[in-house]
């Protein structure tokens, strides 16, 4: 068998990203001003994004192990946005937290690289590698504030439970491999069909184990337990990063694996995911009601949103997946925006992460309050914000696939969720300020807020382009 150089064009973005991450790691040694690193990272990611559009990028390579298609590309756009926004909101924040180290940027880039690999994985081995790359980087990032007990605790819980979940994933992979003799997703599906493996307990077991591991990544109930603690303890910028990137990556692989490898046994995995989705929406929304820490509240909110997005997976239709992708993109914007405001409230000697810190914000900082209001309404799903469009697409796909009852449950929980999002608005607008809150602002933060706000409103009013993109990305 002659050694053929694989086609490297599809993997160009990942290569650029790897180089970038390594470059940042090295440059860290020479550059004193870490803001420069941030700038370099953003520029680098922008270059990577250009690589998305290179000719020949949309192809399969490494013998089917790496698939660069519209689907993965859409997620990679989300990851790129995620990393850019995270870097933008981190710059000043790291100073305030006194952890302004260059590794931070490198780690974020590595984590993103992991996500990109996950999104493109056509083989369970690649998938596992991407997932671990992402996870290991994120563990470190979660514990990035070394001197802070909460950050340590967050990292530890995330790490231990994450490894625990990885083990489940591996066990699931090994079963699938044992049954089908391959780790290639496409071929797994083929083997299942050819050998009539559908309904075999071992296959079911394998699916369950994989589903559990992925559910852990997207923080779906009951595998969400790490999320509130990790989100609360992690540096806020990383919380933002985690709530968008790994979650989107998780959805990307769920969509990829279950629709590509297990389409024959859809009925089975749908029965796994339906109760998970319902529980996720229920627990996420209900527990969020009684939170006092805004990061924790958004953690539960993030859990709840995973529940909605799961509906897209459950439908199993192209529209369903497109709606899920669309949702992830929109969620990236609105959640990043919300976290950006939270980060602004953090200043020297002021945590700014309890809900009562938002009292009277509209009086002291009307613009910040107004932006937060937009993000809160978007998270609730009130038009004309993007959040509504995201939910609408998902509900539409689910109803089209016949899951009207599931949608009714979803909309009711969505209505319940209004209560805790509105509570933030209520604190900001309907209470008087107790203490003066100083905002930590920076140009990059302003840019991040501008991007997110404009995106949330623009997608809310003119969703056609985004919807179209999501729809054509998934053939």
């Amino acid at each position, binding site marked *: 068998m002659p050694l053929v150089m694989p086609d490297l064009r599809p993997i160009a973005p990942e290569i650029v990203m790897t180089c970038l991450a390594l470059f940042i790691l090295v440059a860290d040694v020479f550059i004193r001003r870490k803001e420069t690193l941030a700038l370099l990272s953003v520029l680098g990611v922008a270059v990577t994004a250009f690589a998305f559009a290179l000719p020949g990028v949309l192809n399969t390579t490494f013998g089917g192990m790496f698939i660069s298609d519209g689907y993965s590309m859409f997620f990679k756009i989300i990851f790129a946005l995620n990393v850019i926004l995270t870097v933008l909101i981190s710059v000043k924040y790291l100073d305030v937290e006194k952890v302004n180290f260059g590794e931070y940027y490198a780690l974020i880039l590595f984590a993103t690289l992991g996500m990109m690999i996950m999104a493109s994985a056509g083989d*369970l*081995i690649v998938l*596992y*590698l991407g997932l*671990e790359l992402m996870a*290991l980087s994120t*563990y*470190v990032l979660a*514990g990035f504030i*070394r*001197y*802070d*007990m*909460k950050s*340590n*605790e*967050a*990292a*530890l*819980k995330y*790490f*231990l439970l994450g*490894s*625990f979940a*990885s*083990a489940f994933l*591996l*066990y699931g*992979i*090994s*079963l699938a*491999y*044992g049954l089908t*003799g*391959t*780790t290639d997703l496409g071929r797994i599906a083929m083997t299942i069909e050819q050998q009539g493996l559908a309904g075999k307990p071992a296959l079911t077991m394998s699916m369950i184990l994989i589903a559990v591991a992925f559910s852990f990544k997207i923080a779906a109930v009951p595998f969400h337990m790490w999320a*509130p*603690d990790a989100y*609360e*303890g992690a540096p806020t910028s990383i919380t933002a990063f985690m709530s968008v990137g790994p979650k989107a990556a998780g959805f990307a692989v769920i969509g990829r694996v279950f629709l590509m490898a297990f389409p024959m046994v859809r009925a089975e995995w749908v029965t796994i995911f339906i109760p998970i989705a319902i529980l996720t929406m229920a627990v996420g929304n209900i527990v969020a009601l009684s*939170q006092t820490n805004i990061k*924790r509240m958004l953690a539960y909110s993030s859990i709840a949103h995973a529940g909605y997005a799961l509906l897209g997976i459950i439908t199993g239709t192209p529209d369903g997946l497109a709606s899920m992708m669309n949702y992830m993109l929109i969620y990236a914007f609105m959640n990043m925006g919300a976290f950006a405001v939270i980060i602004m409230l953090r200043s020297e000697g002021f945590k700014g992460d309890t809900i009562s810190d938002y009292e009277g914000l509209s009086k002291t900082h009307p613009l910040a309050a107004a932006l937060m209001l937009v993000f809160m309404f978007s998270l609730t799903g009130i038009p004309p914000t993007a959040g509504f469009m995201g939910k609408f697409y998902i509900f539409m796909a689910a109803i089209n696939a016949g899951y009207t009852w599931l949608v009714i449950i979803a909309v009711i929980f969505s209505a319940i969720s209004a209560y805790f999002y509105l509570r933030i608005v209520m604190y900001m607008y309907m209470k008087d300020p107790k203490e003066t809150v100083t905002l930590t602002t920076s140009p990059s933060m302003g840019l991040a807020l501008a991007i997110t706000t404009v995106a949330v409103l623009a997608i809310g009013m003119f969703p056609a382009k985004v919807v179209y993109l999501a729809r054509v990305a998934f053939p």
Partner: protein
Amino acid sequence: MVPLNWYLMLSAAVFSIGVFGFLTRRNIIIMFMSVELMLNAVNISLVAFSHYLQDLRGQVLVFFIVTVAAAEAAIGLAIIIALFRNKATAHVDDMNEMKG
């Protein structure tokens, strides 16, 4: 020749021991060890499958798992050390500052 099922049963047993250990032990290091045990259980089954299927992928994956486990161990220990600096304990029950 040892039948495949024996390997699988061994693998399942080791995995279960790992899970059980993870669930019952309170020492962070030991919990982490339990995870390692689970990973190795997977490795056993993967190698067995690989052998019986006469396919290399399984063993490739095992190599990756071993590598990743090493990385995991490094990171895990780093986190534990960071933690230990703040709070001189390796007991997970002491880590419940955040809850609810």
